[in-house]
C-alpha cells in the first residue's frame, strides 16, 4: 500500500499527472453486472473551470461522478484528483448528491445537515461545537436560507432542500466540487441562487463539475461542457464543443457499434 502510494507520488513528481490538475480521468470503464455504463472515458478538467455534464438519461453521468469518488467500483481506469488518488485528496472535494437520494423526513434541521459536511474535519469522538455551527450557518447564508436553519428538513421546499445540500458542500471549503443535478426540479429563484454560488466559486479559482439537464442554459452557465453518452462525445470550451453535430451524436442517432457490442457481450454472458 505504502509502496504503491510512494510510486504514485513519484509519478506525479515525474510530471505524469500534474498536481495542479483538479481532475484527471483516464480510460475509465464502469459496469453494473454485465452492462457497461461508462466506457473508456478519458478527460482532464482544467483548474478554475465550470463544467456542465450533459447527456440523455442513463448516459452514465451520475455513475461517472460516483466512480470518481470511489462510491462504486470501477472496472478499469485511473482517476487522479489534484494528482493523487481520490482517497488521498478527498478533503479537497465537495459533493452535492441528488436530492432524491435521501429521506427528507429524517429528524434533523437544515443546520444539522450542513454541519455534516464538517464531520470529517471534526473527527471521531468529538462533538459538533458552536464554531462548527457558525460555519454551517455562514454556508446557509451564502445560499440564502439562513433564516431556515432550524427548520426540520421535510418542512423545506424542494429548492430549499437543494440549497441545503449545496451549503453542506460549501462548508467543506473544497477545491473541486462535484454536483449531481443541483438544478433538478428547483424554482427559478433557487436556480439563480445556485448559479450565483457557482460563479463565486469559480472566481475564487475553484473547479466545479455539474450534471445538468437543461440544454438551453448550458452556454449561459458553463464555460466548459462535457457531452456524455456512455463515452465522452465531446469535451471542451462550451463555445467550441456545444454545437448541433455533437448534440446530435449525444442525444440523436444510436451509438450503433457500442450498442451492438454490449448486446453481443450480454448474450455471451461475459462479465466485463
Amino acid at each position: 500500500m505504502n509502496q504503491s502510494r510512494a510510486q504514485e507520488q513519484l509519478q506525479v513528481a515525474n510530471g505524469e499527472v500534474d498536481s495542479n490538475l483538479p481532475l484527471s480521468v483516464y480510460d475509465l470503464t464502469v459496469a453494473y453486472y454485465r452492462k457497461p455504463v461508462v466506457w473508456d472515458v478519458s478527460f482532464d478538467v482544467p483548474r478554475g473551470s465550470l463544467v456542465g455534464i450533459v447527456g440523455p438519461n442513463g448516459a452514465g453521468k451520475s455513475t461517472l461522478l460516483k466512480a470518481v469518488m470511489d462510491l462504486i467500483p470501477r472496472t478499469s481506469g485511473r482517476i487522479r484528483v489534484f494528482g493523487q488518488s481520490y482517497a488521498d485528496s478527498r478533503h479537497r472535494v465537495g459533493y452535492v448528491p441528488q436530492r432524491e437520494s435521501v429521506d427528507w423526513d429524517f429528524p434533523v434541521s437544515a443546520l444539522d445537515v450542513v454541519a455534516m459536511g464538517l464531520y470529517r474535519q471534526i473527527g471521531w469522538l468529538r462533538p459538533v461545537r458552536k464554531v462548527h455551527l457558525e460555519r454551517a450557518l455562514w454556508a446557509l447564508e451564502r445560499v440564502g436560507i439562513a433564516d431556515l436553519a432550524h427548520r426540520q428538513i421535510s418542512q423545506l421546499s424542494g429548492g430549499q432542500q437543494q440549497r441545503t445540500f449545496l451549503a453542506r458542500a460549501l462548508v467543506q471549503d473544497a477545491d473541486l466540487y462535484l454536483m449531481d443535478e443541483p438544478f433538478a426540479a428547483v424554482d427559478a429563484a433557487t436556480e439563480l441562487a445556485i448559479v450565483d454560488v457557482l460563479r463565486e466559486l469559480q472566481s475564487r479559482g475553484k473547479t466545479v463539475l455539474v450534471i445538468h439537464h437543461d440544454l438551453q442554459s448550458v452556454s449561459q452557465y458553463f464555460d466548459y461542457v462535457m457531452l456524455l453518452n456512455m463515452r465522452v462525445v465531446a469535451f471542451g470550451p462550451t463555445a467550441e464543443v456545444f454545437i448541433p453535430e455533437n448534440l446530435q451524436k449525444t442525444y440523436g442517432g444510436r451509438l450503433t457499434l457500442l450498442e451492438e457490442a454490449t448486446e453481443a457481450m450480454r448474450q455471451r454472458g461475459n462479465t466485463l
Partner: protein
Amino acid sequence: MRLQNGILQEEILRSASLRPVRSTLVKTARVNTTKRVVVPKCCFTKVRCSIIGIFCGVLVSSFPFVAFAKNEPEAALSVGDWWRVISLADYNTRVVVLGTALLGFAAGVVGSFALLRRRALLGDALSHATLPGIGIAFLIQTLWGGDGKSMPVLLLGAAASGIVGTFAILGINRLPRLKEDVALGIVLSVFFGAGISMLVMIQQMATGHAAGLEAFIYGKTASMLQRDSWLIGGAGVFVSLVAVVVFKELKLLCFDENFASAQGYNKFALDLILMAMIVVVTIIGLQAVGLILVIALMVIPPAAARFWTEQMVRMTWIAALLGAVSAMIGSAASALFPRLPSGATIVLVCSAFFLFSMFFGTSRGTLLRYWHRRQLRRRVGRQHLLRAMYEYLELHIEADGDLIPNTAGIPVLDIREMRSWSIRQLQIEIRRAVADGDVVSLPDKTLRFTNGGLVTARRLAREHRLWELYLITYAEIATSKVDRDADRIEHILQPSMIAELERILEGESLQGLPPSSPHPLRSGPSIPGGGGVSP
C-alpha cells in the same frame, strides 16, 4: 421561466422576501444559535407535553395488569405486596427491574438508529435466528455434564447462530433478483423452524429438564437471576455508551450513506458497528422479552418518539426513556404475577406509549395536526367572509374619499353568491364572526362590519391584492387565474412578507389602503347595476 404553476408560490415568495432583507434575517438567525430561542409562553410546551404523555402512558398501560390481577387466583396481593414491588424494596426485584430498564434504554437507543437506517426487520430476523444456537448451546452443555443452563453459554450460542443468520441474509441479498424482504423471510422462518424442532428434540431427551428454554421464546424476567441481570444491565450500558461515541457518524450514515462514503467513512464498518449493537441488544433481550417480541422493544419506542420531536438527539433520548420505563413496568408486573410473560407485558406497555404518542405527540401527533388544520380552516373561512363583505361594499357603496364608509347592511344572500358557500357553512361562519365581534348580524338578514371588523377586512383585502399584483407582475400568472392562486397563499402571509411585497410593488399601495382589484370582482347577479362585470 418555470414559475407559472402555483405549486412554487412559496418559493417565489421566499425569493422575494429574502434577497433584500437577507442581512436582517441572517442577524436574527445568528442570534438564535448563540442565544436560546425564546419560546413563547404556553402551558403546553413540548417538555411538559412529553411529561404528561409519559405519565398518561403509564396510567393507560397499567390497566391490563389491574384487570389481570383481578382474574389471577394467586393475585390476592395485599397493598403491602404491591408497594414492595413498585417501590423495589425487594433487592432481587430491584436488580431484575434495573437490568431490564437498562436493556430497554439500550434498545431505544439502538432502535432509533435501526429505524432510521431501515434495519429494524433485520433485528427481527436476527432474533429468530438465535433459537437454534440456544438449543445447540444447551446440548453441548448437557453433553459436558452440566445442567445446560449456564446463561452466558446459552447467550453465546444465541449470538453465534444469530450472526450466522445475519450473514445468511446478507449472502442471499447478494444473489441477483432476490430482494431483502425475501432474504429476511427465508432466514427468519428457516432458523426459527430449526430452533423449534431442536427444542422439541431436547425436551424428548431424558437428560436434564429443558423447560427453562421456553423462557427465551416468550421472555420471563421471573426466571432471571441476579447475575443475569447484572450482565444484561452492563451490556445495555456498554451499548448506550458506544452509541454516544459514534452518534454523529451513525447519524450521517443513516441520513446519507453516499455522502458518508464520499467523505471517506467506511460505510461497511459503520454498518457493522450498528449491526453489532443490534446483535447485543437482541441477545440480552432474549431472556426478558423473548426472541419473538424483542424486536418490538427496538422498534416501538423510537417510532413513538418520532411523534414528539424533529431532532434526532431528542428522539433517541425519548426512545431510550420510553424503552426503559416500558421494560421496568413490564418486568415489575412479571415479578408480581410470575405467570404473566414479561415480554408480552413489556410490549403492551410500549404499544400503549405508542398509541398515546400517535394521538398526542407534539410534533407529528394526529390530534395536533387535526387541530392545526382546523385552525387554518377557520382563519381562512373568516378571511373569506370579511373580504367578500368588503368587496361588496366596494362595489355598491360610493367611497368617501379613499375610505369606504361602514354604513350599509350587506345582504347575506349576496355574500353567499360571491363564493361557493353552502348556507350552513355561511351561517356557521357568520355566527363565529359575530361571536368574535368582527360582524354584526341585523334582523333584516343583512350583515354589518363592526369598526374593528372593517379595519381587519381592509387589511385582508389589501394583502390579498398585493399578492395578486405580485403574482401578475413577477410570476406571469394569467390575470383570470390570479384570484384563486392568491387565495391559497394569502392566508399564510407574514407581516415581513407583506412589507416586502409593498416594497417591490412600490406605488401600488400607499397609506395602508387596498389597491384596486386587478380583476373584476365577483358579485351577486341580484344587484341592479352591481358592476355588471361578473365573469
